[in-house]
């Protein structure tokens, strides 16, 4: 399988080189493209110096728009599979095989590397917990499938699916909305357990205020996806 690793990066200059070299060492057989989402620092130059192919967005599109750029690239360059990996070193490239395996066996169209599949000690504040429970319940009902980690940025997709998302990607609220859309279009999602390391740099894009408001935003976007007829698939 001709595989492409997509690393969306925004302001990861201090660590991006290390992340790229680690991935290339772990998987010399796969290609790698960094999507530099118009970083204010020299993330793009650092990535290029580390030996990656770099697509530089002239305008900041946010994580959704950056990832979709990677999908479009993979469509044009004729890849069979893509893996999305965070640019902050959270994901261990030695676990790439775990998320690619079910794809190669044809067991799924998307494999999510999940943090929560096995019990962890993670305890969230009350307000956030309520939001998460409410949200995951709705997401489960909408997807008719349980996905433990809906916000994981570590996932693999096969060609039919990333071609589909290259055309129809909910770039504004990419997380759960994408999963619901993917399920509605009858693609198969599988979740595998992976270890996450503490990020090497940067902050989570989630703040306290956001973490309260986020589930409701997600609920709305899921509702909207449910009300829409999903765009038709071209591969069936």
């Amino acid at each position: 399988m001709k595989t492409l690793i997509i690393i969306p990066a925004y302001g990861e200059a201090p660590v991006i080189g290390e992340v790229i070299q680690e991935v290339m060492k772990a998987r010399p057989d796969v290609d790698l493209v960094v999507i530099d989402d118009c970083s204010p620092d020299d993330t793009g130059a650092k990535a290029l110096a580390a030996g990656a192919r770099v697509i530089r967005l002239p305008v900041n599109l946010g994580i959704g728009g950056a990832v979709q750029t990677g999908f479009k690239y993979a469509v044009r360059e004729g890849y069979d599979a893509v893996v999305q990996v965070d640019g902050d070193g959270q994901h261990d490239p030695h676990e790439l095989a775990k998320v690619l395996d079910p794809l190669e066996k044809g067991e799924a169209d998307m494999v999510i590397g999940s943090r929560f599949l096995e019990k962890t000690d993670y305890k969230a504040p009350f307000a956030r917990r309520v939001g998460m429970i409410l949200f995951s319940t709705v997401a489960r009902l909408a997807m008719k499938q349980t996905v433990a980690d809906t916000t994981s940025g570590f996932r693999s997709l096969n060609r039919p699916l990333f071609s589909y998302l290259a055309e129809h990607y909910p770039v504004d609220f990419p997380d759960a909305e994408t999963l619901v859309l993917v399920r509605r279009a009858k693609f198969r999602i599988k979740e595998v357990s992976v270890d996450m390391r503490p990020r090497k740099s940067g902050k989570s894009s989630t703040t306290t205020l956001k973490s309260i408001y986020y589930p409701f935003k997600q609920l709305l976007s899921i509702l909207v996806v449910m009300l829409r007829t999903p765009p038709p698939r071209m591969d069936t």
Partner: protein
Amino acid sequence: MEQELPFRAQVVAIIGCALLFLFVLELVRRRKLKEEYSMLWMAVSLGMAVLAIFSDLLLGITKAMGAYSANSVIFFFGLLFLLAAVLHLTVKVSGLAEENKNLVQELALLRGKLEEKSPPS
């Protein structure tokens, strides 16, 4: 109930409408405003002028709607119109944002292709 509009108020209203009309026309002439949108604003200024000239019309509408005063009828329709205009604009902006995103992605991909052939120095 309401009296007829005083003559002076009528004149002020008509002048206001004429100024709006001319201003919109000037914007179109200087290509600051697309013809597509100018039609709407010209229609609004003409509509208001008609109401100002034939003020009986407004009183008639007020009566027909069962509204207490002509003022509230004006404000009601004014507000309704502005709401529709803003909604229309947000729809337009959403479309533009989508187009803009696609263009940015296309540009980045093409630039990537170009740099593959001749790396940036």
